[in-house]
């Protein structure tokens, strides 16, 4: 059979081409419509996250301050003490740094990883005048005998790496020792792991509490006729109309030792004047305030799922002989699980990164990792560490999504 001729349009353009043209136009228009959003998402979401991830391993200090030395150390194999050339480069770079006034920063940087690193640099600096000509190797070792220790060079090589895992190690209370092994920090300096664990623990508790309180609310609202249901939903949303700060500080007013609740209990004689309860500025305060603030995020997804469970299915169950309790347990509950999953995940993820509330009402025992991140961002200016902690949180949340997908299935999640 002969191959059918290509259909040609009246104006002589093949049909296929014309169709492709028309489709392409549509695609351009569609793309043009999402473009602003795409740019917005890239600029405000993708780039910051990428930058954070990068910053958590980025280590530009030495490359900036002593570029030649970094180069020489890169080539050095680390097997035995560096050669005269490396010593010469080191001397030249350090002298240049001294001239430029950046030697102090190198000293500080080295000191992060090598105890006594600062004094080594500064001591060498004082003796620079004596070192005039080669061989620099002997001269430097003479200036400070630690230059003759291969370990010193090992650490120097390590801190000169363009990329570092140090921030991540620090974020989990670990560090390199002088031999380059990963070791735990001294007991009194271990704070972050506890904080991470506490953050997860608080998030878990808040998720459970909001679930416990939110489930009956969502159930109630979803079984009301629409008019009453809408009113109740508005009441659930009402807190959103108030500033987060106001809501958090009102908890302080309520719960502090001289606060309303304590006053009432003293007045009722439940507790004595001396026995006023410490209900805020501790873990408990964080839990109470966060549970209240995050409750709507639990109720709404659950409500929207429960609303889709039809009344006639529950009636069918009853007509088949199941009393209301069995009906709830075997029909309503399993059907509401996607809502629990969605709400739980939402609340958990929001809690993990919660900041203002623990900062205000958490005291020292109710602080979360995000408070430390903020501290390193704003006060200690150790952005690398802050970025590493942020990245760990991000990874934890991603693992959680992955687990959720494995166990429940992300496609079962319904937000409305």
């Amino acid at each position, binding site marked *: 059979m002969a191959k059918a001729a290509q259909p040609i349009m009246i104006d002589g353009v093949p049909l296929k081409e014309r169709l492709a043209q028309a489709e392409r136009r549509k695609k351009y228009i569609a793309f043009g419509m999402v473009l602003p959003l795409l740019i917005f998402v890239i600029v405000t979401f993708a780039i910051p996250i990428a930058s954070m991830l990068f910053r958590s391993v980025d280590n530009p200090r030495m490359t900036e301050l002593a570029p030649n030395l970094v180069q020489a150390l890169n080539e050095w194999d680390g097997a035995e003490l560096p050669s005269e050339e490396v010593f010469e480069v080191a001397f030249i770079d350090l002298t240049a740094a001294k001239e430029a006034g950046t030697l102090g920063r190198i000293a500080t940087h080295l000191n992060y990883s090598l105890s006594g690193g600062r004094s080594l640099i500064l001591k060498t600096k004082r003796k620079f005048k004596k070192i005039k000509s080669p061989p620099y190797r002997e001269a430097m070792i003479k200036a400070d005998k630690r230059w003759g220790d291969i370990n010193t060079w090992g650490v120097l090589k390590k801190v000169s790496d363009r990329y570092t895992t140090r921030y991540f190690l620090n974020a989990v209370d670990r560090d390199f020792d002088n031999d380059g092994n990963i070791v735990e920090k001294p007991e009194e300096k271990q704070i972050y792991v506890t904080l991470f664990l506490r953050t997860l623990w608080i998030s878990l508790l808040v998720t459970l509490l909001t679930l416990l309180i939110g489930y009956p609310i969502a159930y109630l609202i979803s079984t009301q006729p629409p008019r009453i249901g809408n009113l109740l939903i508005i009441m659930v949303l009402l807190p959103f109309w108030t500033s987060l700060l106001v809501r958090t500080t009102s908890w302080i007013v309520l719960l502090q030792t001289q606060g309303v609740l304590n006053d009432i209990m003293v007045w009722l004689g439940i507790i004595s004047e001396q026995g006023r309860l410490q209900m805020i500025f501790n873990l408990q305060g964080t839990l109470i305030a966060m549970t209240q603030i995050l409750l709507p995020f639990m109720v709404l997804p659950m409500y929207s799922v429960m609303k889709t469970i039809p009344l*006639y299915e529950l009636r069918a169950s009853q007509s*088949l002989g199941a009393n209301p309790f069995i009906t709830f347990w075997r029909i309503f509950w399993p059907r509401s699980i996607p809502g629990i999953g969605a709400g739980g995940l939402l609340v958990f993820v929001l809690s993990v990164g919660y900041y203002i509330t623990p900062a205000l009402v958490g005291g020292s025992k109710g602080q979360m990792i995000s408070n430390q991140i903020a501290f390193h961002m704003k006060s200690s200016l150790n952005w690398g560490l802050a970025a590493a902690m942020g990245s760990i949180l991000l990874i934890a949340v991603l693992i959680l999504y992955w687990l959720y997908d494995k166990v429940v299935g992300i496609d079962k999640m319904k937000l409305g």
Partner: protein
Amino acid sequence: MSTSISDAYVSFQEVQKSYDGENLVVKDLNLGVERGEFMTMLGPSGSGKTTCLMMLAGFETATSGEIMLDGTGINNVPPWKRDIGIVFQNYALFPHMTVRENLAYPLEVRKVPKNEITDRVEKALGMVQLSGFAGRRPGQLSGGQQQRVAVARALVFEPKLVLMDEPLGALDKQLREQMQYEIKHIHENLGVTVVYVTHDQSEALTMSNRVCVFDDGVVQQVAPPDVLYEQPQNAFVAQFIGENNTFLGTVRESQADRCVVELGTGEVLKALTVNVDGVGSQTTLSLRPERVTINPEAGSCDNQVQGDVKELIYLGDHIRARLELCGNDQFIVKVPNAANHSHLREGESVSVGWLSEDCRALDAPN
């Protein structure tokens, strides 16, 4: 009549229902359903059929009156203790359970032993020809298959009574007819009592032992399908079941079971007295289109008038003719497409006749 209702297997006695405290949705319902009977409630939308069914199932409470099942009042029995199977219009299968789990559910909540559950579920699935589908979820079944699962589930626990609320409403015509027969056969084989709700009159006539015609919360007539069609007791039933020609008129004479009615246009017709108040009262005459003869032999019909043919529609086995006569321009006649049928032409004037016993004098519209 009231004694027979209270003796019935299922009975509504002077039941009234109001949702809002202002309007009665069901007004004084008295109805008895015999054991093993297939009773259909038929009525237009909003007439209160679902409400009655829900009262029977226990999901709505009767505002007043008594509902009895198998000799005991069930007004205060909660739905899960009534032992009534229900097939809902949208099936109400549990989407998170397989077909097998759906069927096992009523048995499990009754604590039937495991192996017996397996047997009974298999049997029920066999009954609706779905043995191979036990492992599927309802979402993986076609509408008709879901329908059968719903029927099987409502029967598997051998309930005292099965209620079906427009169970075939969501199916297409062909499947609906097939399911009508299947449900009818299941009913015949099991001998279970069924109360069925529909607003499709042909469905009601096909399936039921008796049909209860409902309108506006009031029972209009309860009768077997043939009686309902051939001997409607009032104008609503005559109008609602099948096709119907009507004339309004005044009763002029009445003797034995016949009466003479004068129409508004002056014609005088003879009719069977069914539901009229006596001489001088208003009446609706009801006449089935297939009982009308075109060009009758002289003397064979005691009613004979002239009519103008307005429209002819060819329908294969018969021809539908719309005539104007006695002031009614919607008068329908079904002319059988038989060997010697009369050939009509639009615009011609023909003689039309019928027997007075086929023309029923019913109540007047109020």
